[in-house]
């Protein structure tokens, strides 16, 4: 077997293996020295320099994956696209978070008077709110705040710019 043939076989084996495949396992299949296998893997790696793929070492084995910079594109493959408007529950929850941030789920639920888990999850999925850390005290509850995306949408720099119509009376 020519080494260039061996290089191609090794590339195919790494691609088709169901778990990361080690130089030792490859060596047993192609009947070449582990050192030779390793240097041929390096050759494949060099050939991959210009393309989308990458040979990665994981858990003592080789694995072909896409280059990390392609992640934003590849994520678009599997992510469902949703254009549904905000529900009333989510809008209420968002208003509370915008005005009271940083705020815990319990505090949101106190204002709304109902459980707000699904509204919070929906706002997290929409990337309108994010976790800001945890509150000191029992249970160390998560604190929520609005995101850059929220500010961008309304053209705001910070929550200080939220309209205060009538709000000071309650504060």
């Amino acid at each position, binding site marked *: 077997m020519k080494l260039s043939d061996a290089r191609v076989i090794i590339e195919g084996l790494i*691609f*088709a293996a*169901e778990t990361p495949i080690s130089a030792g396992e490859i060596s047993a299949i192609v009947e070449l020295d582990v050192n030779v296998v390793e240097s041929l893997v390096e050759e494949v790696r060099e050939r991959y320099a210009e393309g989308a793929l990458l040979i990665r070492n994981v858990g003592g084995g080789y694995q072909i*994956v896409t280059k990390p910079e392609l992640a934003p594109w590849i994520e678009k493959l*599997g992510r469902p696209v949703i254009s549904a408007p905000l529900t009333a529950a989510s809008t209420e929850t968002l*208003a509370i978070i915008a005005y009271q941030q940083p705020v815990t789920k319990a505090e949101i639920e106190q204002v709304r008077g109902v459980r707000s888990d699904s509204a919070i999850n929906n706002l997290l999925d929409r990337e309108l709110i994010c976790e800001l850390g945890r509150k000191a005290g*029992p249970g160390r509850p998560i604190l929520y705040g609005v995101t850059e995306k929220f500010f961008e949408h309304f053209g705001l720099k910070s929550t200080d710019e*939220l309209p205060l119509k009538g*709000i000071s009376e309650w504060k």
Partner: protein
Amino acid sequence: MGYIVELDVYQGPFDLLLDLVAKNEVDLWDIPIAAITEQYLAYLYSLQEKDLAITGEFLVMAATLIRIKSRMLLPQEPVEDEPLEETEDPRLELVQQLVRYKFFKEAADFLKQCYAEAAKHFTRGQRIENYDLSPIYIDPLGDLTLDELSTIYNELLSDREQEPPIHTVTSQISLEERLALVRLQLVGQPRATFSELVRSDSVTEIVVTFLAILELARLGEIRLVQTQSCGEIDIMPLELEVEVQP
């Protein structure tokens, strides 16, 4: 069980007939029906001798063949108002079925070749992991305006003002205070019972304490165990439990 293999040789009566036509090297469009019928029946008898079940479809075809054969043996009686040439060949329908079946049998062979060829190609062995697959929201805020947002917030706050706060109307004990107190009562306790926490017989005290432990359970700070209905409620602070059973 060697006989089963022999039965499996033919997919059905069409398959058997096609094989007989091929073995006799005759034209499918001009089948010597008498000879083929004889061979067809001989095959069925051979199956019967081996005590193999013959499916109904093979028997129906035998009947069809015999009917065609007899029609072909009869002298063609001229049908009134119809010239002789246009009388249909009794074999025609069967031949059309055979031609059609033969086409798909060959198509099946083609698929078999495709399968063998495709099996030489291997797809990526590993799944792509660690990608975020949560939904993408186009226009997540829709047409919500800042004014609407502040109006909604104001309404929420005023609703809260107008609503009689349940926990202060009937007593001086607020739920929040009771909650804080229960937390204090539980400090350093591996477990407590509901009756230990209640400090008086007042219904309000019992109700508010009960609401407080429900709230603490909801917040995940305690676990509640009641072994029988209307029985004692055991309260176990959860952080302590974690420390006791690492």
